[in-house]
C-alpha cells in the first residue's frame, strides 16, 4: 500500500473532482465534504510519503506508473525536497478548502460543484508537477494547472474575466516555450525522463551543443514567465487580486512556488550544476535580474493602497528571492531558495487568509479596512501580524531563517547587490506592514477603535472576531505553521541537505 502513495496523491483529487461534479448535480452540499475527504487523504498520503523518503536518507523513491521502464513509461521520483513541497501543497489545499466553506457559497452560489472540481484538479496538477520525473508529463500537468487556474480566476469579480484572458495569453506563451525547450532536448538526447536526459547529456558529452543551450534558455524563459519573474510579472497582480477569495488564497501561495521548484529541478536534475553554472557571466546576470525583481516588487508593493494588490507585488519580490538564491550557484543559496519555497508558501497563505477575512468583514479592499482592526478582529490581526513579521524577517519565524540562508549564500558568492536587495526588501516590508499596524493598533480616530466607559459586555462575540470558525481556524493554523517551520528550521534544512547532497554544489 505504501508503495502506491505517489499515485494516490495525484489520483485522489482527480477522483474527488469527478465525484464533486456528479454528486453536485443531486446535492451541492455534498461537494465540500467530498473535496475535504479527498484532500485529507492526499495530505495524509503526503505525510506518509515524506516519512518514507526520510527513512532512507540520501535516496529517492521511484514510482513507475503501470510498472513500465522509466525510459518508456512515466516515472514519479520523490526526494526530501519534492516530498516537502507536496506536503506544503496538500496542506494549503486542505486548509484552504475549509476556509472556502462560506466564501464559495456566497461568491459563486449554485456553482459550488464546478468550483470544487476545478479546485481539486488544480491541486492534483500541482502535486503531479512536483512528483513527476518525466519532462513531457510535466508539461501536461502544467497545462492542467493553467487551464483550471484560468477558469478559477475568471469566475471572480467584474474585472476578473479580462485579467484571466491576459493570463491565458501569457500563460500559453510560457507553457509553449517550455514545450519547445523539451523538444530541443528530445532531439539531442532522445529521452523524456529527466534522469534519462541528464544521463544522455553526460554520456554523449553534448552539453556544449547549441541545441541544448537553446533548449535550456527556452525552458527557463517558459518557467520564468509562469512564475512571474520581474519583467515578466505583468499578469500576476490583476489575476490574483480580482479572482475569488479562495482562488487567490490557493494560487498565490502555490503557483509561483511550484514553478520555482520546477526551475530548481530543471537546473539540478536535468541540466546539472556544471552546465548551469558553467558561464559565470550568465548566472551572475540572472542573479542581477532577481535583484532588480526584489527591488521592483518591493517598491511596487509600497505604491499600492489596495491590500490584495500590495500582497501580490510582494509575491513578485519573493520570486526574486528564490530565483536569486537558486542561481547563486552555491549550497547555502540553494538551501535558502528551497527552504524559502516552504516558508514563503506558508507566509503568503497566512497573509492572504487574514487579508481575506478583513476584506470580507469590512467590505473595504483598501488600507483603511485596517482602521482599528485589532479591537474589532483581535485573532485575525494576531494571525496577520505573525505573517507580516515573518515577511519582514523577524526571528523565530521562518522568514528570518530563509533570509539568513539566502544572505549567507549571497555573501559566499560575493553577490553584494543581491544581499543589499534582500536587506532593502526587508526594510520596505517593515515600512509597508508597520503602516498597517499603525492603523490597526493605534487608530487616529480613537472613538472608532476604542470604546471608553462603555459596558465591556456590550460586544458579546468580540472574541470570535465575528468570523466563522471555518475561516478563522485555518488562518490561525497557517500563522502557527510559520513559527513551527521557523523553529524546526534545522531539521528541515538537514532534510534538504540530504536531498541536495547528490548535486555537486559548491
Amino acid at each position, binding site marked *: 500500500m505504501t508503495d502506491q502513495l505517489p499515485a494516490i496523491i495525484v489520483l485522489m483529487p482527480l477522483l474527488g473532482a469527478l465525484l464533486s461534479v456528479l454528486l453536485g448535480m443531486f446535492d451541492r452540499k455534498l461537494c465540500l465534504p467530498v473535496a475535504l475527504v479527498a484532500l485529507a487523504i492526499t495530505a495524509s498520503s503526503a505525510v506518509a510519503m515524506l516519512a518514507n523518503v526520510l527513512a532512507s536518507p540520501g535516496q529517492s523513491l521511484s514510482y513507475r506508473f503501470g510498472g513500465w521502464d522509466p525510459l518508456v513509461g512515466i516515472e514519479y521520483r520523490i526526494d526530501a525536497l519534492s516530498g516537502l513541497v507536496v506536503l506544503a501543497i496538500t496542506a494549503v489545499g486542505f486548509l484552504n478548502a475549509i476556509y472556502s466553506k462560506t466564501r464559495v457559497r456566497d461568491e459563486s452560489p449554485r456553482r459550488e460543484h464546478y468550483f470544487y472540481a476545478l479546485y481539486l484538479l488544480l491541486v492534483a496538477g500541482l502535486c503531479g508537477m512536483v512528483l513527476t520525473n518525466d519532462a*513531457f508529463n510535466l508539461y501536461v500537468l502544467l497545462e492542467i494547472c493553467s487551464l483550471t487556474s484560468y477558469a478559477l480566476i475568471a469566475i471572480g469579480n467584474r474585472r476578473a474575466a479580462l485579467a484571466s484572458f491576459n493570463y491565458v495569453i501569457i500563460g500559453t506563451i510560457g507553457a509553449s516555450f517550455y514545450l519547445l525547450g523539451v523538444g530541443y532536448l528530445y532531439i539531442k538526447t532522445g529521452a523524456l525522463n529527466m534522469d534519462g536526459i541528464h544521463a544522455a547529456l553526460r554520456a554523449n558529452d553534448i552539453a556544449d551543443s547549441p541545441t541544448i543551450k537553446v533548449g535550456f534558455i527556452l525552458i527557463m524563459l517558459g518557467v520564468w514567465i509562469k512564475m512571474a519573474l520581474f519583467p515578466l510579472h505583468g499578469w500576476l497582480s490583476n489575476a490574483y487580486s480580482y479572482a475569488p477569495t479562495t482562488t487567490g488564497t490557493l494560487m498565490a501561495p502555490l503557483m509561483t512556488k511550484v514553478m520555482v521548484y520546477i526551475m530548481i529541478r530543471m537546473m539540478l536534475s536535468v541540466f546539472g550544476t556544471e552546465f548551469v553554472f558553467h558561464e559565470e557571466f550568465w548566472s551572475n546576470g540572472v542573479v542581477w535580474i532577481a535583484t532588480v525583481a526584489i527591488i521592483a516588487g518591493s517598491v511596487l508593493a509600497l505604491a499600492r493602497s489596495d491590500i490584495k494588490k500590495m500582497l501580490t507585488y510582494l509575491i513578485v519580490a519573493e520570486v526574486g528571492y528564490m530565483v536569486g538564491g537558486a542561481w547563486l550557484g552555491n549550497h547555502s543559496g540553494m538551501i535558502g531558495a528551497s527552504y524559502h519555497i516552504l516558508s514563503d508558501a506558508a507566509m503568503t497563505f497566512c497573509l492572504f487568509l487574514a487579508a481575506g477575512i478583513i476584506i470580507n468583514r469590512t467590505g473595504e479592499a483598501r488600507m483603511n479596512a485596517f482602521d482599528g482592526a485589532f479591537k474589532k478582529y483581535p485573532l485575525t490581526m494576531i494571525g496577520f501580524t505573525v505573517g507580516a513579521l515573518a515577511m519582514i524577517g523577524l526571528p523565530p519565524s521562518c522568514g528570518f531563517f530563509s533570509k539568513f540562508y539566502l544572505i549567507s549564500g549571497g555573501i559566499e558568492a560575493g553577490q553584494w547587490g543581491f544581499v543589499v536587495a534582500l536587506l532593502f526588501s526587508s526594510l520596505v516590508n517593515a515600512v509597508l506592514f508597520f503602516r498597517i499596524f499603525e492603523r490597526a493598533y493605534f487608530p487616529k480616530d480613537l472613538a472608532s477603535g476604542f470604546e471608553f466607559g462603555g459596558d465591556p459586555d456590550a460586544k458579546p462575540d468580540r472574541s470570535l472576531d465575528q468570523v466563522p470558525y471555518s475561516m478563522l481556524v485555518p488562518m490561525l493554523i497557517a500563522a502557527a505553521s510559520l513559527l513551527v517551520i521557523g523553529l524546526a528550521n534545522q531539521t528541515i534544512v538537514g532534510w534538504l541537505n540530504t536531498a541536495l547532497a547528490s548535486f555537486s554544489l559548491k
Partner: protein
Amino acid sequence: MMLDHAMLANLIEDTVVPKINFWIYIILMMTGLYAMISKNNLIKKLIGMSIFQTAIILFYVSIGVKSGSGIPILGAETQREFHEVEHHNHEHDEHPEEFPDVYAYPTINPDDYANPLPHVLMLTAIVVGVSTLGLALAISQKIYHEYGSIEEDEILAQIKTRSDNDD
C-alpha cells in the same frame, strides 16, 4: 552588398533547404506571437495563440521524420512472422516463467520507420491547445457580456471611466 545568383542559391541550399521545417515553424511562431502581443481585438489574439501552438506541433511532428522512412506500422509480412513466433512460444509453454525466445522474432530496422513518439506527444498537445482555445473563447464571451466589446482599448477605456467614478 551584392549577392550574385550562384552565391544566393548556395546560401539558400546550405541554410534554408536542409532546415526548412525549422524555418517554417519559426516564421509561424513569430506570426502567432506578434498577433498575441500586438493585436487589439481579443479574437485576433486567440487566432494568434492558435497559430503559435500549431507551429510548435509542426516542429514536433517534423522532428520525427527521417529520410527514407515510412509510417511506423509493421508490414503484413512482418506481422505474420510475429504472429507465428507468438504462436510458437505459446505452444511450448512448459516453462511459463522462462523468458520468451526473443531471437525468434523477425528483426525490425528502426531506420525504416518514422519516430512515432513525437507524434503521440502532439496528440496530447493538440488536446491541450483545443481546450485552451475553448476556455479562452468562453472567457472572451464573458468579457463581451461585461463590456459589450472585444476591442481591448475600448474595454480599458471603460475600466478607466468606471474606476474614476468609483473614486
